């Protein structure tokens, strides 16, 4: 039995590859239950939030696995950056706070970044 558990643990460890710490670069993004933008949102992540990121072999390209508090889910690579970006809500904190965004606003901000079709005419490839 112990051997089976050890084998499963080793198998899991080899399947999840730790990539490193990344930062959320969009104003708000969703932590998804699965590696797809159509899956349920577990929580909303704010710009500048740091995340420990793993890559699962079974996940489609562009999706990373992470843990945020009690939630374990997926976030799309296009929403992440290796270094902390200058976030609007930090740069203009007083202005941003004065807007009193409610949960619905934050949810829709995150959905907006799920729904955008994005491309960058400089990179030579699509972001999504």
């Amino acid at each position, binding site marked *: 039995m112990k051997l089976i558990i050890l084998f499963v643990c080793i198998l899991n460890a080899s399947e999840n590859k730790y990539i490193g710490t990344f930062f959320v670069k969009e*104003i708000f993004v969703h932590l998804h239950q699965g590696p797809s933008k*159509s899956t349920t949102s577990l929580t909303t992540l704010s710009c500048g939030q740091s995340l420990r990121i793993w890559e699962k072999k079974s996940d489609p390209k562009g999706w990373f696995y992470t843990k945020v508090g009690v939630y374990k889910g997926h976030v799309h690579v296009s929403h992440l950056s290796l270094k902390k970006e200058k976030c*609007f809500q930090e*740069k*203009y*904190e*007083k*202005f941003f706070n*004065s*807007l*009193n965004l409610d949960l619905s*606003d934050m949810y*829709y*901000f995150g*959905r*907006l970044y799920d*729904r*955008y*079709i*994005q*491309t*960058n*005419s*400089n990179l*030579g*490839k*699509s*972001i*999504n």
Partner: protein
Amino acid sequence: MFLLLIICNLVFGSIGKILDHDMVPIVKKNEKFDIFPLEKDFWTFMSEYWLVKSAVELQWDFQRPDYGLEEKVFNIFQKFGIFQKNIKLLIINSSSIPHIPLPGNYNESIFILSLPFIRTLDLSKNEIALLILADYYRSKLNFLKSYVRDDKLKSMFGRSDEEIKIDKKLITQIHKRYDEFIFSKGATFQEQFKFTKTFSDLLKSSDKDWNMYFNLLKKIDVLVKNNMDFKDYLRLYPSPEMQLRWMINDRKKN
């Protein structure tokens, strides 16, 4: 134990002093940030905030297939020498806005495109990409931005004085001006002429694209004359029929 407490106090006491000494200027530095955003940082946020507030009306949060538009849009932007632009395209499931560019920051462009509009016209990916390119040139002429950017807003950009109060009414007013332009006022004939002339001139370098845009306008002209779902198109972009004439006249001159 007592000795350990003394050592802890000495170590953490000095750390505390260092923190006190170093943290105070950091907090003060933060206070120097502009209270109202600089214009260069303002437009993407405001347009996206407007989209967030209009989510239900515009119906952009819906499940749709992947149309694979990124490559076509990227290619046409490259073809016409537009680089270093982050292009954000939002497909809406409503015919209330057929297509429109929203003001964005310097290196960003936000576009809205109606799914019922592209389906009814049966547009190809190349035609959609050309429509996005047209909207990019429309955004460069700043029709919507100029309408929203009134004197009060202009005076607010980058304000950092402590006395200013950010009134939520101001944001509501800005969104109201977005609504007014998009749902009521639209582009004027002069603005439409200016855009058509600019875009027609640009397309002269490619007969294929000029003809494609000309045929696209023909399709739109037929649509708005026959389909009541798109009657509001003319309020936003007056007379595709006139646009066709302007394009022909422009071509004849050259």
